């Protein structure tokens, strides 16, 4: 098979253990609505998928490329607002609006990323943080377009071949699964390609990566762009699901929550993203009566995780920089190129 084809990349990702794990998970996700849970539970489940998309996006930048971005809520916001404005003001259909949201978010990612990714790690962190605040302020004050602090109400629901998707007919739930799986598959393809190995090389040692001829800035910008794009898709999905957005939905707390979820699951792993989202979205819902303690708990989790298990709950104990799996491993073994 052609080595650059996307199917080859997919095959690299698929090992037998993963097939069982992912297959079982997808099966469970698909039959989950059949248990007849309330709309409230279905909504929580859908939010888990949205946060999985957001953490997958962060994972590309923070987990694989090693650059901590703290402004991902801004791309989420841009995606949500761009999509909503296209639908409400321009009367576009949901699917085109979603693409527009993704494009806007990706473009803003490029605009921030190009100048700032020349800087080293901690500077990137603060610039993305500042960018998040700038975006929130623009949304809050640009009244004629964004309706300011009032937010935008009555966002129309998407229509799929004549069927209006709502939470109660599980339309959003299934759409979220499809989107998340597409994004996860896409991320898997990226990570198992030459690009992904460049990302990991940058994470492990940026100087050494440069010495090996990797154009580090190009790859950092690419990771940042993809991350913004995916966050934008999550935002564009979120807006019509809730039907109402305002600037307070996209505060710094969301950015730090995304980081918290990703770290809890294990940065640099894919299934960790889903797992982290599941735990940290479900727990506060279950313990809603502890409302004020929730953020204290986030704080303690972050501190304790960094202290005792910085690789996350599902991270590997010893961090292996890159693990060959699937077809690539078999190819390498055949040629006796694998030294482990």
């Amino acid at each position, binding site marked *: 098979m052609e080595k650059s084809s996307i199917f080859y990349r997919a095959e690299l990702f698929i090992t037998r253990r993963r097939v069982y794990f992912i297959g079982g998970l997808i099966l469970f996700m698909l039959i989950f609505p059949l248990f007849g849970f309330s709309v409230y539970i279905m909504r929580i489940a859908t939010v888990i998928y949205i946060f999985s998309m957001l953490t997958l996006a962060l994972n590309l930048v*923070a987990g694989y490329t*090693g650059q*901590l971005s703290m402004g991902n809520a801004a791309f989420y916001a841009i995606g949500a607002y761009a999509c909503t404005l296209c639908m409400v003001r321009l009367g576009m259909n949901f699917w085109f609006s979603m693409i527009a949201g993704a494009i806007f978010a990706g473009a803003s990612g490029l605009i921030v990323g190009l*100048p*700032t990714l*020349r*800087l*080293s*790690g*901690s*500077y990137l*962190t*603060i*610039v993305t*943080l*500042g*960018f998040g*605040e*700038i975006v929130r*302020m*623009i949304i*809050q*004050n640009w009244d004629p377009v964004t309706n300011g602090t009032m937010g935008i109400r009555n966002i129309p629901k998407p229509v799929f071949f004549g069927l209006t998707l709502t939470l109660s007919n599980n339309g959003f739930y299934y759409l979220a699964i499809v989107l998340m799986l597409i994004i996860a598959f896409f991320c898997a393809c990226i990570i198992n390609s030459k690009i992904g190995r460049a990302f990991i090389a940058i994470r492990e040692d940026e*100087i050494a990566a440069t010495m090996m001829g990797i154009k580090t800035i190009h790859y950092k910008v690419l990771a940042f762009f993809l991350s913004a794009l995916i966050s934008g898709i999550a935002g564009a999905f979120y807006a019509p699901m809730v039907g109402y957005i305002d600037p307070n939905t996209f505060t*710094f707390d969301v950015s*730090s929550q995304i*980081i918290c979820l990703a*770290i809890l699951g294990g940065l640099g792993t894919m299934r960790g993203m889903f797992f982290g989202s599941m735990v940290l979205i479900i727990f506060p819902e279950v313990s809603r009566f502890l409302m*004020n*303690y929730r*953020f*204290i708990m*986030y*704080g*303690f*989790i*972050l*501190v304790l995780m*960094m*202290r005792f298990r*910085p690789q996350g709950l599902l991270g590997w104990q010893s961090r292996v920089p890159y693990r060959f799996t699937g077809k690539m491993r078999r190819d390498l073994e055949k040629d006796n190129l694998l030294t482990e």
Partner: protein
Amino acid sequence: MDILFQQIINGLALGLVFALVAVGYSLVFGILRLINFSHGSVYAFGAHVVFFVVGFGLGPVLGIIVSIIVTGFLGIFIDKIALAPLRRKKSMGMAALVTTLGISNIIQHTLVLISGSHRKAFPDFYNFGLVTVFGVQISSRQFVMLGVSLILLLLLFFIVHKTKIGLAMRATSQNQKAASLMGINVNSVITTTFFMSGASAAIAGGLVAGYYQVVYPGMGFMIGLKAFAASVLGGIGSLPGALIGGLLVGIMESVAALYIGSNYRDAMAFIILIIVLIFKPAGIFGKKDVIKV
């Protein structure tokens, strides 16, 4: 024209407070190469301690003194509990960064638990009326802010540049290993640094709470970000840089409020920051780090 001068004076008073908070970031960054994201919350904590002590009827001076001590020890506590173990384990920089983020959450929401998230009125201590200089009105609150921050910044410069512990701090920030080989107790230097950073945050908190006459747990978030922007602007790790950066952010913000509208004033710090970083990544006073392979 008068109104422009007025705004510049307002910006100057605010800028010195930014500088005072920015110094806290710079001290810690200089020694540990770590952005201490909990600094904004430490600042809010300091303001709350002043508020509580004043609530017992003990007056602002005692309030600030108690706050300096308590908040300074909070700084040491944070370092000893959360950051020192990470240093011993030699874990990556991102881990320490995320830890400070978590501590910030803990402090801020503990304050919410203790006193509620609403804004509380802070007594108006520093108000002795207005002074008019060349047609510019300066309130006595601004005088207090200007005076106290200036004195404190000078004191900090004195400590860092003229005393023995300051010499040890500068040596440690140059090269930790070499400093410890020269007989400097690096751990006690780090402890002192965290105490100074917490103490300066407490004073800034007390001043700003008195200036706006309001305290609330979230008060440190925005000023923390802006002060951080200011310290990066001036060249993080450099004390004169923190001062210049703070003043620059304060004045630009006040002037922007005049010409662009007060809605966007909070964004100014970050816009300046991004522009400066593009052209001069090390900041105005910063030296470029030599990367060792």
